[in-house]
């Protein structure tokens, strides 16, 4: 007999289940966690270095670094003072909840209050895979151009905060901030946004204030 069976299940439901387990592990240990996503070169590692070096004295921070290969980023996070764990995805273009689930036991979660997960540099794939972190952060940067919300709407749509890095380059690069922000506002109304420069330090305090306010008291 030929039957039609209704399913209506999210295609990545298995990933979602593991993501929920990750969230529970983090909450049990009262760790606030963020998933940092961006295209390669936008400044994820630079912002992590700045964050760790400025908050690291009062807040114990761990960084989990996802990369296709090498441990260069984890080395930089460790040099800045974080507990650093590298995940090499071996070619995969994004982290998924299972990779994070396997990396979490390498950290004593009771020792830390902030976990930063640095995703693989990519504006497409990481958007589809929830990790179980509390907030997803997208780092855009001025040299990428002002059309990115229009070209990668899926990524801009799914994040909880947006950093606009390299604002010190605004005088040298044609970048219509209004046009950029209009695209962002339509895809993600009211999105918390932090224009800053890791190079000059401008705007970093507002980012750190926001991040600090998210931590468990």
């Amino acid at each position: 007999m030929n039957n039609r069976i209704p399913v209506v299940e999210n295609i990545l439901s298995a990933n979602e289940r593991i993501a929920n387990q990750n969230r529970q592990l983090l909450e049990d240990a009262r760790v606030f966690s963020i998933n940092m996503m961006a295209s390669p070169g936008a400044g994820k590692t630079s912002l992590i270095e700045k964050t760790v070096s400025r908050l690291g004295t009062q807040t114990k921070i761990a960084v989990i670094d996802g990369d296709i290969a090498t441990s260069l980023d984890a080395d930089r996070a460790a040099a800045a003072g974080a507990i650093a764990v590298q995940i090499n995805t071996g070619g995969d273009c994004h982290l998924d909840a299972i990779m994070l689930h396997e990396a979490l036991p390498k950290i004593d979660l009771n020792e830390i209050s902030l976990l930063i997960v640095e995703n693989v540099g990519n504006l497409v794939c990481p958007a589809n895979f929830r990790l179980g972190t509390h907030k997803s952060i997208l780092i855009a940067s001025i040299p990428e151009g002002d059309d990115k919300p229009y070209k990668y709407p899926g990524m801009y749509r799914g994040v909880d905060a947006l950093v606009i890095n390299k604002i010190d380059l605004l005088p040298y690069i044609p970048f219509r901030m209004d046009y950029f922000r209009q695209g962002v506002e339509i895809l993600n109304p009211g999105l918390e946004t932090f224009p800053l420069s890791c190079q000059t330090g401008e705007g970093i305090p507002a980012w750190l204030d926001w991040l600090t306010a998210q931590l468990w008291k």
Partner: protein
Amino acid sequence: MHELPVTESILEIALRHAIQADARRITELNLVIGQLSSIIDDSIQFYWDIIAKDTIAEGATLNFKRIPTQMTCQECHTAFSPQEDDFACPNCQSQQVKVSAGDEFYLESIQIDT
């Protein structure tokens, strides 16, 4: 590039529902995928032919229902598909628009033989 884990997930969900229904074979899968989900049908089909082999889903047809991105103007209530580089309402040029479709990403149903 992430179509392989997506395809594996589709197979896992389909097999689970088929086994619950005592299926002998899965003949069709009906997928609903919004334009904002950045998934390439051809790649899913390519991986599907490999990973569904030797399962009760081998040879099943994948039907993709693609949902175009749709926006709705909050001021004049026009529904429209946005242009590539401009999301403003084509009727009143308002920037007060919201995404109303395009995020879909699910397996709607499967067709089985029992």
